[in-house]
């Protein structure tokens, strides 16, 4: 490692605040981008799944009614 200790790494000379702020913001932006993209995909997949189940149930009950008439 370039730094002698973990404390040095945190301090970064006198630039620790700036460096860690920039990296923290980057981590946050990437994490939020990932979570929101993934969240949208999961939500859509779940909605499609529910629709499919509803349609299946609808088919079944239609068939069921058909048996009795």
């Amino acid at each position: 490692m370039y730094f002698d200790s973990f404390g040095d790494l945190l301090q970064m000379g006198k630039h620790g605040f700036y460096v860690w702020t920039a990296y923290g913001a980057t981590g946050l932006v990437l994490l939020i981008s990932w979570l929101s993209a993934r969240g949208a995909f999961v939500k859509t997949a779940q909605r499609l799944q529910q629709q499919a189940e509803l349609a299946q149930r609808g088919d079944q009950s239609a068939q069921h009614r058909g048996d009795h008439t």
Partner: protein
Amino acid sequence: MLSASLKRLWHKLGSPRWFFALTESWVKVAGWSALVLLVWGTIWGLGFAPADYQQGNSFRIMYVHVPAAMLAQSLYIGMGVAGFIGLVWRMKLTDVAISACLPLGMVITALALFSGSVWGRPTWGSWWEWDGRTVSTLVLFFLYVGIYALREAIADQELRARASALIAMVGTINIPIIKYSVEWWNTLHQPASFGLTQKPAMPSEMWLPLLVMVLGFYAFAGFIVLVRMRTEILNRELGARWVRDWVQVRSER
């Protein structure tokens, strides 16, 4: 024969269904590459690269600032190209691509501005400078915000696609302005740290981590854009037979 098969490929590329099937494995590759590269590059850049003899440790901000700024422009170019193709060939997928690039491009541009500001404070002595590059990047951010707002405002899908394609295309004029701003105007901003053709002006132990970070950011963008495009395709093709089949296969797994 080549032109015929190229034409076929072109038409396939425009088909949401084909794209959806094709990119299933790409998503995983892009996602995992992004994770590995970003973790590797961050550890390297933060802990192992030597400090700059002039800027000290603040130069480590470069490892997030430069990739963010590159990506901010690339995503916009991607939207411009998609917009052009969409307007000329009326391909369905291009609007899906624009909608997928937009949110990431917007936050990445904000990140480029923010990280630049945090780097500017210890280096230039101020959080913000009205110089060519920061202003043209700010314009880029407003272009993203503008297209985003426009898309929210227009309900008609066809009109929305054409309006955003047009603005995306016209806005690409700003990209060469960002690129050459450091040469055209007197500026505090340092020139490119990195290029495809010239040798970097820093030693390899400094630019190699940057290369890893740039690759990581692009892999991440590929991952996010693909996930968003696939989501949008599912939403647009709700009733299609192949979507129902996909749902069934997925639920059985």
